[in-house]
């Protein structure tokens, strides 16, 4: 469904006439099938969030292609409502002037359904992420981190996308809330039969949710492994990462 081939990305450091170029992603290729959950694991600065933005089609790769169901992911029409995202920072994930219902309504606009259907859908979505309809009138700053991330999830699944990119979606939450949101992610995945790309620095969370993981370091793929074979990783870096969470 999603196939990434030979993707490279550079950033210019500094201003207009800067010569200093940073090579953020080097020759990244992988694919993600229907209903699959792929974890992308890397330390900060490894280029995993850049990769996330490329997968979402909001930035263009310097080289290589990213195809979603055969179409280039940069094509807005091909993405429309079929790819979705949840981001890390729950304080900026919603327009501060919008109420929760307006937040969830935004993707539903693309679906061109009637007013009453939209209202019902909002209630249904809130219910699915474990919130009740009293949350509809709230403003983002009135929500806790976990609640805000649930609303973001409700918004993300509103158009019943085939793929959701979760960029550090649970990293800014407390431990117990993290587990709740992970469980919610699991149940939503079953409900909608979606694929996840779960970008994180947290191997444990990835192991809890994902079918396979991609370990990325300095913009290069270090190793790709099925979750069952996570113990038998080959590369030194992957072994080191694993050892760090064992101890």
């Amino acid at each position, binding site marked *: 469904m999603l196939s990434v081939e030979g993707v490279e990305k550079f950033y210019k450091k500094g201003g*207009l006439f800067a010569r200093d170029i940073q090579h953020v992603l080097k020759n990244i290729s992988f694919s993600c099938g229907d209903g699959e959950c792929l974890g992308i694991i890397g330390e900060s600065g490894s280029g995993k969030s850049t990769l996330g*933005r490329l997968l*979402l*089609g*909001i930035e263009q790769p310097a080289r290589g292609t990213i195809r979603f169901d055969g179409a280039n992911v940069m094509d*807005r*029409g091909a*993405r*429309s*409502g079929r*790819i*979705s*995202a949840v*981001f*890390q*920072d729950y304080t*900026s*994930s*919603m*327009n*501060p*002037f919008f*109420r929760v219902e307006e*937040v969830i309504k*935004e*993707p539903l606009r*693309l679906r061109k359904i009637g007013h009453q259907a939209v209202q019902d859908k909002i209630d249904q979505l809130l219910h699915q992420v474990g919130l009740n309809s009293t949350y509809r*009138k*709230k*403003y983002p*700053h*009135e929500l806790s981190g976990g609640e805000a991330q649930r609303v*973001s999830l409700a*918004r*993300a699944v509103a*158009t019943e*996308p085939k793929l959701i*990119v979760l960029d550090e979606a649970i990293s800014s939450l407390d431990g117990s809330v993290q587990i709740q949101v992970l469980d919610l992610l699991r149940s939503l995945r079953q409900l909608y039969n979606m694929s996840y790309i779960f970008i994180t620095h947290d191997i444990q969370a990835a192991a809890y949710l994902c079918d396979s993981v991609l370990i990325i370091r300095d913009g290069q793929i270090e190793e790709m492994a099925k979750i069952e074979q996570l113990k038998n990783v080959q590369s030194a870096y992957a072994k080191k990462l694993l050892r760090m969470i064992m101890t």
Partner: protein
Amino acid sequence: MNMLKQILKDRLAGVSLFIVAITIAAGAFAPWLAPHDPNHIHMELRYAGPSWDFPLGNDHLGRDVLSRLIFGIRPSVLYVFAALLASVCMGAIVGFIAGYFRGRTDAVLMRVVDAMLSFPGYVLTLALIGMLGVGLENILIAFVLSKWAWFARIIRTSVMQIAETDYIKYSKTIGVGHLSIMARHIVPVSLPDIAVIASSAFGSMVLQISGFSFLGLGIQAPHAEWGMMLNEARTVMFSKPELMLAPGLTIILVVSAINFLSDALQGALDPKLMSSKAKFQARTAVSAARLQGKEVA
């Protein structure tokens, strides 16, 4: 409505809003409000003191000072406001495009802005008046041309911050078009910033236009303008100081009101002040206060 409530909570801001509103209304309805024709000359009443008929006295040509003050609102405040709106609009369009699309567009637009900003504002205005001739319209044109770049720069910074937030990234992801992202997210969220900088620029523009009129570069006699009234009263500054006091105090009052209001706007437009249930919160605050009171007792 919510915003108005927030402003009125602050007493100083409430008074400022009142003064600004009254000024604008008086300017708009000047022909009905002014007790006399501002340009009508009564030579027998030269430098007459306040009377029931002429509450603020008469100037060197016996014209009614109060009526001239009221008619002076138009060029001093209303036309300045129109010029402000025009330059904010220009600045906003450039700022939105530069801040949202970034990259090469941003670089090109910002170099144009840099070029505009490298001229000192007063000198640019004087040069334009030199080329186009003396007159209020030319000062206003000069204002628009010299101020828009400054607005563009500030609005661009604000838009850049907003464009990086996750809700914009999300909208882009699900394939919402650039124009509707701007209309639904960027314009409403950056509006408070724009309102604050525009209102703070308003005060200084009112002062500047009065300054230019004082120098005789702005509106031409016999039309009334506050700065020009000051200039006309200058010759009798020591013998009849009250003639300078009236326009001087009016300028001070209106400009300070605008500045206080722009300060209050900053607070009142904070989205964090919006609440899904304001009344409920007020009640809990009261009960919390009561509880504390009990603890002390």
